[in-house]
């Protein structure tokens, strides 16, 4: 066969070095099968053997199977297995001290020689029976040299080599080289097994995290639903404003879209929740103040104003609603910095809060209240415009009026639905 080495010793050592380098660099491969096959092919070509085979431990099934087998004496891959209690596996799994075979290889020639010595058979008695079985197995597989590969104390696999086509015996240098290979292969296999188990563990962790995330989300949703129903309670306390929040929500979303706000994913939910819940804090305002017809006294106003903080407080357990809380807390801030509770100014007020402020005010102007009739949409527009720059963000007022006019022209919103 061409390509079989018959060249100088120097050339062979170069090859060996190259292969060792390759093996080491491939130790990190996720699936070591390719590396193992490459090594089998290299040995087969480089040394010209009757048989080159790699037996590897399948940890999930407690057995050893062939990954590759080459040469005239090859074994069909997938046909045979060796269970962990097979004499060959046992031979390399239990201590070989006090036998002449304590080194990490086994030559058929050495076995024959030693089994013929009566004193040896006597000395290792029970193990000599095992050795006879090992010898038989090696004969059956047409291999002359077997080299175990270990990782820590585990037998990861066995490199099995048939006799040379040239008929020459293996040299110690060659045996040492095969041992290096067996060691490298074992490292590659164990590393990949370890990586694989890490990957699996990671997947499992990710799966659990998703599960927890889902549960948490569900819990938050439930809490949100409760708050929503609370907000409806608030409305129920003021029968005249019934339907206010859902109108505010509709108008607010419309305005946000007109302003080109990013409403992807959670952003949309956040704004929607803020619009629906902006007055949820009114739950904590006494009925006599909340539903008082006519003007409030300065003391009553002070109590009324606390509804923004109360609203934010109610939402505290909702970690996902941090942003919603911030919006609710800021929806009575004024663009010129004279609002409450923190006297935020201009851009310091979240854009969502500036939207809530405009649409909430608008809706309050146009809808019927217990103490007065709702005013016309045109009047409301004029009032918004007159307060643009002081109470309201002029950009938001602009966008709001523009989009509402457009929606009304298209018939999506009617004056009566706004004023009911």
């Amino acid at each position, binding site marked *: 066969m061409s390509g079989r080495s018959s060249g100088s010793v120097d050339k062979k050592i170069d090859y060996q070095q190259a292969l060792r380098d390759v093996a080491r660099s491939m130790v990190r491969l996720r699936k070591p099968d390719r590396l193992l096959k490459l090594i089998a092919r290299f040995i087969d070509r480089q040394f010209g053997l009757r048989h080159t085979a790699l037996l590897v431990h399948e940890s999930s099934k407690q*057995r050893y199977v062939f990954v590759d087998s080459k040469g005239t004496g090859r*074994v*069909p891959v*997938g046909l*045979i297995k*060796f*269970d962990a209690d097979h004499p060959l596996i046992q031979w390399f799994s239990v201590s070989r001290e006090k036998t002449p075979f304590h080194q990490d290889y086994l030559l058929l020639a050495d076995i024959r020689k030693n089994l013929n010595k009566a004193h040896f058979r006597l000395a290792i008695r029970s193990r000599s029976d095992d050795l006879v079985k090992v010898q038989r197995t090696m004969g059956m597989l047409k291999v002359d040299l077997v080299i175990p590969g270990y990782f820590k104390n585990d037998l990861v696999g066995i490199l099995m080599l048939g006799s040379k086509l040239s008929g020459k015996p293996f040299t110690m240098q060659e045996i040492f080289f095969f041992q290096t290979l067996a060691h490298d292969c074992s490292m590659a296999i164990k590393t990949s097994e370890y990586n694989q188990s890490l990957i699996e563990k990671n997947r499992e962790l990710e799966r659990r995290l998703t599960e927890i995330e889902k549960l948490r989300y569900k819990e938050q949703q439930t809490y949100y639903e409760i708050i929503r129903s609370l907000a409806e309670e608030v409305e129920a306390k003021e029968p005249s404003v019934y339907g206010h929040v859902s109108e505010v929500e509709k108008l607010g979303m419309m305005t946000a879209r007109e302003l080109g706000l990013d409403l992807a994913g959670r952003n949309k939910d956040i704004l929607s929740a803020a619009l629906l819940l902006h007055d949820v804090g009114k739950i904590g305002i006494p009925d006599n103040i909340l539903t008082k017809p006519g003007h409030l006294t300065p003391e009553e106003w002070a109590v009324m104003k606390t509804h923004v903080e109360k609203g934010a407080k109610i939402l505290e357990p909702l970690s996902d609603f941090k942003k919603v809380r911030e919006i609710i807390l800021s929806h009575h801030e004024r663009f010129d910095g004279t609002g409450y509770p923190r006297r935020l100014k201009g851009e310091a007020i979240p854009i969502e809060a500036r939207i809530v402020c405009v649409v909430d005010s608008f809706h309050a102007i146009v809808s019927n209240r217990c103490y007065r009739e709702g005013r016309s949409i045109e009047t409301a527009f004029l009032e918004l415009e007159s307060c643009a720059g002081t109470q309201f963000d002029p950009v938001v007022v602009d966008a709001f009026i523009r989009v509402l006019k457009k929606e009304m022209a298209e018939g999506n919103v009617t004056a009566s639905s706004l004023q009911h």
Partner: protein
Amino acid sequence: MKKKLLLVDDEVEICEFLRSFFEDRDYNVATAHSGVQALDQVEKFGPNVVLLDIQMPEMDGLTALRKIKEKYPKTKVIMVTAVETQDRIEDAMRAGADNYITKPLSLEYLEKDVQEKIESLAGA
């Protein structure tokens, strides 16, 4: 008693490996690579034991098994296959298989089982 063994597998390499293994153990071995060939060889060669693969072209192993058992009920048939489902095993046993061995197999076990089948024939 003559030890006559028929190996049936569509993979020639498997047949040849097992042929060499059993010939080394003084068996008289014949091979076949399909169900049809298997029936033909059972007729001509008259094996004591047949090692029969299940998945094969022309005629699958289960069909071959039924036909062999119908005509030569004394011939021992051991199913050797990579397919291991409870249904398949039950099908094979119902069709008269004398054992069911899955690949990868232990050669020691295979040898012991074939030996036992031969001995049971000799004793009968």
